[in-house]
């Protein structure tokens, strides 16, 4: 990764009060439909936290600030936020950050242009305020509740945690890219069972904020896309104290047209693979994994079952095998290709992609990404049919089991990634054995 050379300094408006215990930051861009609810929820959450209504481990917040980092909305988002905050807008601090002409052209999967610069400005603002905890919320979320603020800030202020990751309730079919690649790979690499490391919200301690600001990730090429994942990896690899907070459902207001699966996969998996290259000395020493405590009670939610055409997924895998097999041989050993060949003829009901095979495939692609056996964009896009095959296999295994059973199935997959990790380590160290 090379530096873009862009300036990353934040120009924070100086607050009237220079210190606060908690900063809640809202990152927004053309979110006029949702920002009102988000701001109102933040205001209520802070009120509950300051008058002791909400649990913060027995403490209440004396002083808090709200930060708004808007990416140049042209739909009146900042005005709408100020209106929704009402009297609380007195504690609002608007932070600005440099924007580049190309921000809107390179659309990230999370739909937030200049995400890294926004986050950096927020963290610099929080650091200036000298807060003990900083919570970041996205202005495009439809389901923010006041309880999210104490849930993300409480473990930092009273529990001594450095990084609080939200744990959103999701249907077993949803978030498959996270469940099938990001989580198990992240867990195997960094040794922590952080289940949703790519989400855009988090709570962080002053110590973590300082470490983030010192990190050299802000100006890297893919920072605007992968910064959330990299910050989670930084917390996991940096020895910080991590926990998860159950927040219920997260639905998002879509900014513009959604990306196709191939591009999403390139961005998400690519940024994770890029992170691997920068933390070799950390992940090669990690063995096994430790659980991350879940702080708080999960709210009751009803999850809708998404419509999925499993046979269509299997057909996509088969088409991929027929046409992309030659490309896969650049990164996968012959044995894996032969194992995949066996899946071509099985009937859909018996279609199963073994966990250890899937783990090796992901590791092979990580290594291929590192060695640039193909242009990286081509390599990652060619993973799409394999991912769809894995997804079909997973759905067939969990569709008739309760949600706990689906979670257990993902746990089994994550264990396979941990068991196969020596495969990655050995090939990473001795790449000449690659493709044998």
């Amino acid at each position, binding site marked *: 990764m090379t530096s873009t050379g862009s300036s990353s300094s934040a120009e924070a408006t100086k607050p009237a009060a220079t210190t606060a215990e908690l900063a809640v930051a809202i990152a927004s861009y053309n979110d006029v439909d949702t920002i009102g609810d988000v701001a109102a929820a933040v205001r209520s959450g802070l009120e509950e936290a300051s008058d002791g209504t909400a649990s913060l481990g027995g403490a209440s917040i004396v002083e808090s600030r709200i930060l708004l980092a808007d990416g140049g909305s042209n739909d009146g988002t900042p005005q709408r936020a100020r209106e929704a905050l009402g009297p609380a807008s007195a504690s609002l601090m608007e932070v600005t950050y440099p924007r580049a002409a190309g921000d809107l052209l390179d659309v990230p*999967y*999370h739909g937030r242009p200049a995400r890294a610069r926004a986050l950096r400005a927020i963290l610099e603002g929080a650091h200036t305020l000298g807060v003990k905890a900083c919570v970041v919320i996205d202005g495009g979320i439809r389901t923010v509740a006041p309880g999210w603020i104490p849930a993300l800030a409480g473990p930092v202020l009273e529990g001594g945690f450095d990084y609080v990751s939200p744990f959103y309730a999701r249907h077993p*079919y*949803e*978030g*498959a*890219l*996270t469940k099938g690649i990001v989580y198990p790979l992240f867990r195997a690499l960094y040794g922590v069972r952080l289940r949703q490391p*790519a989400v855009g919200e988090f709570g962080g301690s002053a110590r973590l904020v300082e470490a983030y600001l010192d990190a050299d990730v802000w100006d890297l090429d893919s920072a605007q896309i992968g910064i959330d994942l990299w910050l989670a990896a930084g917390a996991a690899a940096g020895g910080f104290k991590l926990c998860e907070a159950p927040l219920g459902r997260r639905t998002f207001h879509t900014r513009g047209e959604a990306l*196709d*699966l*191939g591009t*999403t*996969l390139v961005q*998400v998996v690519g940024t994770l693979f890029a992170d691997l290259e920068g933390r070799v000395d950390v992940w090669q020493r990690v063995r096994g994994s430790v659980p991350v405590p879940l702080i708080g009670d999960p709210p009751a939610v009803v999850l809708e079952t*998404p*419509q*999925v*055409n499993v*046979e*269509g*997924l299997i*057909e*996509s895998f088969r*088409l*991929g095998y027929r*046409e*992309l097999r030659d*490309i896969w041989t650049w990164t996968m050993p012959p044995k894996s290709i032969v194992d995949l060949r066996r899946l071509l003829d099985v009937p859909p009901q018996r279609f199963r992609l073994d966990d250890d095979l899937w783990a090796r495939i992901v590791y092979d692609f990580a290594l291929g990404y590192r*060695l*640039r*056996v*193909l*242009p990286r*964009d*081509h390599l990652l*896009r*060619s993973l*799409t*049919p394999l991912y*769809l095959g894995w*997804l079909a296999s997973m759905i067939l295994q969990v569709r008739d089991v309760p949600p706990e059973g689906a979670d257990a199935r993902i746990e089994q997959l994550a264990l396979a990634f941990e068991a196969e990790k020596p495969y990655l380590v050995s090939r990473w160290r001795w790449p000449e054995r690659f493709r044998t």
Partner: protein
Amino acid sequence: MWQQVHKIVNEASSRIATGIVNFLPGVVVLLVILAVSVLLAFVARYVILRALTSLDFDRHARQIGLSAHTDWSVTRSPSLLIARAVQWTFLVLGLLIGLTALDATMPQQFALSIFGYFPHLVAAALILIVGGLLARFVGRAVLIGAVNMHIQSARVLSLTAKWLLFMIAAAMALDDIGIGRSVLLLAFGILFGGIVLAIAIAVGLGAKDVVSRAIERQLREPSKPEDTLDHV
């Protein structure tokens, strides 16, 4: 009379001997130049191969997408390919320089015309190499993109894009070295016109059933499975 004959024979012999004497140094120079160029070619090949190997050139070439794993490549090592190219360049240049040393009009003209042609040959070779790499890159991108869009005829699309680009590169290269300019123009006109005409006729007349079945099949292909799923 015999004296006259003897004189003519002597003069002829003298002219032949003079010619041979004048020609022989050129041949010797040609042989020396050839020997030196052979020697230089092998030394250059050895030095370049060693240098590129020590610089791990093959790996860097792969990293920037300049892999020699091309369909038309004779070797799997870019270093070896470059070393061989340099070796043959030395040999050919040695031969051409040697030919100019001969005291003969035709070889000299041939050599000089080749020298005049050389920049065009280099440019044509570069066009072919860049065109070949670009065709391969685009062909692979089209293949992967089409598969991810669940298009059954992804391979056909990929090959079409790849060969179209390669043919354009080949035509540009041939045009640069001045081979069949008008024929090329005509051939391309006929080719593209023919393709468009064939598609029009296929749709309108003979293959309308096949085309309608193909369109129907495409429409019946499984709908994008990511439509209702949030993957991240």
